[in-house]
């Protein structure tokens, strides 16, 4: 057998020295058993083999290569996939090295440790006694304690109260949308929508002119029905010029934009026209004023009455007939005039 190279002899020496040091640290005999003091190992195995150590070395080398690759790529070609591959592999190699080292290289020990007793009656009573003695000589103990409790509760309440500043008071703000009688309906670019822009079978989104588009009360659905298609009592068939209906685009269930319009090309073989919300599939009947026909929404889709001005432009004829947006405790209440 040829003489092993110097590097390997050096490594063996260092390992041997470390091992000797480790072994010397172990207690020679059984110490008295008390909780917290480490007992001797009841099983100890030194599984390390050259193969296992070599695996660890290769894994660590792999880490170096992969991590270096990451650094190079970051500078030269920071492609997400390549970067992730390199850094990920670096950690995986590190993991392999650590796990193999932990299971197959370092000493495998099984130890027993005693658990402490939990709960000592004597000490508990001592503690109670100490606390109690702190009140010796205090005459109106009950009253003082009560007063202290009241003080604590009061300060606690006072400390929490400023949280109310985080928001406004609930008032009629949840009722009022930006729509007013006479306000023009415009598209996303601000151009007014005319009667000609709304076709039968079409689906358009409108906004109140001059108002913020993303307020929940703003977005409006515009659809057009054939004459005679509306299935509402005569007195409710107002605010639908030329059969054009306006509905709030915000679902009264959970606030998503109602962006689906199920419009049959040939009605005898398909379901009737409905506006549907893509979140939880609440389905609203356009012929019956937005009444719910399927899904979890607790109310109908609110309708906005419309009329037409002199230039044939669509204009709101008031606010929504019912409160818009998701339900809250006052959603069915009589709304104050704007």
């Amino acid at each position, binding site marked *: 057998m040829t003489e092993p190279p110097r590097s390997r002899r050096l490594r063996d020496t260092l390992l041997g020295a470390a091992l000797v040091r480790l072994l010397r640290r172990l207690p020679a005999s059984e110490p008295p058993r008390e909780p917290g003091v480490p007992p001797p190992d009841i099983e100890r195995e030194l599984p390390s083999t050259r193969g296992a150590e070599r695996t660890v070395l290769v894994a660590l080398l792999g880490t170096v290569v992969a991590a270096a690759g990451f650094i190079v790529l970051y500078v030269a070609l920071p492609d997400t*996939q390549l970067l*992730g591959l390199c850094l990920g592999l670096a950690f995986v190699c590190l993991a392999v090295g650590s796990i193999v080292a932990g299971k197959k290289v370092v000493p495998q020990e099984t130890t027993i440790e005693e658990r402490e007793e939990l709960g000592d009656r004597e000490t508990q009573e001592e503690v109670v006694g100490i606390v109690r003695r702190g009140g010796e000589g205090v005459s109106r103990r009950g009253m003082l304690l009560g007063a202290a409790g009241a003080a604590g509760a009061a300060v606690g309440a006072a400390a929490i109260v400023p949280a109310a500043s985080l928001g406004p008071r609930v008032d009629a703000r949840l009722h009022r949308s930006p729509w007013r009688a006479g306000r023009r309906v415009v598209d996303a670019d601000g151009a007014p929508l005319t009667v000609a822009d709304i076709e039968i079978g079409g689906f358009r989104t409108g906004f109140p002119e001059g108002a913020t588009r*993303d307020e929940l009360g703003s977005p409006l659905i515009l659809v057009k029905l054939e004459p005679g298609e509306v299935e509402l009592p005569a007195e409710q068939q107002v605010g639908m010029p030329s059969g054009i209906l306006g509905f709030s685009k915000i679902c009264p269930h*959970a606030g998503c934009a109602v962006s689906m319009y199920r419009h049959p090309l040939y009605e005898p073989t398909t379901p009737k026209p409905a506006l549907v919300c893509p979140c939880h599939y609440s389905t609203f009947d356009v012929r019956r004023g937005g009444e719910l026909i399927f899904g979890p929404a*607790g109310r109908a889709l609110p309708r906005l009455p419309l009329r037409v001005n002199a230039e044939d432009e669509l204009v709101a004829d008031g606010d929504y007939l019912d409160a818009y947006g998701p339900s809250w405790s*006052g959603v069915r209440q009589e709304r104050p005039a704007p």
Partner: protein
Amino acid sequence: MIESPVRFVDERLNAAKLLRKALRYVFPDHWSFMLGEIALYCFMVLDGTGIFLAFYYVPSDAETVYRGTYEPLQGATMSEAYRSVLHLSLDVPAGLLIRQTHHWAANLFIAAIVLHLLRILFTGAFRKPREMNYWVGVTMLGLAIFEGFAGYSLVDDLLSGMGLVIAYAVALSVPVVGADLALLVWDGEYPGGTVFWDRLFTIHILIVPLLLAGLIALHLIMIMKQHHTQFPGPRRTERNVVGTPMWPGYALRSLGLLFATAGVLLLLGGLVQINPIWLWGPYETYLSTNGAQPDWYVGWLIGGLRIMPPFEPHVGEYTLAGNAFWGGALFPLVVFGLLYLWPLIDRRWSRRGERHELLDRPRDNPRRSAAIVALLTWVAIPFVAGSTDRIFFRLGISYEAQVWVFRVLAVAGPLLAWLVARRVFANLQRRDVHPLRGWTGRVTRRTASGGFETVARADGDETDPVPRERP
């Protein structure tokens, strides 16, 4: 090399005793005890990647026009928040890697906690003296779910924006205080203003991470104080711990798990796309998309919202609860309520108040295990119901039919699951007592006259004692 630092801290802090205790601390060996560690390491990855992300994110809903490198969004109006995440994803070297790693880590964090929770429940590890630690854990689960939702909602993309308005609606729907609650959090009606984004950002990067870190520390301290539980076995008693000491074996294995977790998350972060916000586009209240879903750990809630019938009780003009309340708030409240009460319910059932250090296997307590399966089923059914639209899209099963099936299953499923699970676990338990129980075959036995005979043996024809339920 080791001696000088040890001497340094010991001569100043008397640390050697602590170090000795720490290095020889005993960890019982079972793979299922490391599930919580996966969660811990995910948390570390989240912290590290999160700091990087926080340096780029802008918590603002101020409108801006995109003039960046991604063609399909040229000229689109979007919030500063969305634009900042877009910039990080598409223009910053390693930005997308870190962002995706962060998101995968969030998903895995909660998955690991759920697996860990199931292990705790099934093995009875929540029993005295560990009730408080269990409650800390359940709290962390709730915080983690909230934190994840907050995190991906900060991006203000189309999908998460839809989720945020639903959260607003759920808040609104709470009886009596809903409107006040929602307006308080959003400082006015949805979508609120920049101040909401500041709040959500502060909550996500400061308040909840601090809470989680504190709770994790508490969790670990209590474990160290009480020592880990263990399964029954040779030499294992209710008053000792048998296992591997921290140094060197367990430390290296734990480190290995940390690196493996980081490695898996980084590989996913680079190779598997998650939340490609440039494809979804920015959110506006008047936009929505089909097939929108929350992240998996909120899936049980979207299912609850979808299968709930349109029930919105009102007395005259006063609405008692918005419909979104049932599936979005009451359902998770009840589930978490049950989780919190679990140690107390379990103690009532078993009528014992003693200290447990040895774990049960699931079969050792069929009633408890069946109850866990029932609770899991009650959560899993709405979870699956959340994907009904894609199930219909892929398999053609009618959406309306699915909704009805899931409604029935949501009520009947847990009951059925409980009955089946109890049978299964009881059977497993019986098979334990007598290894051949349940086996039918042929038995060779000695006859009185001295020869041998072979007879067929059916299940149950031996007079074995009926096992009592293990405490």
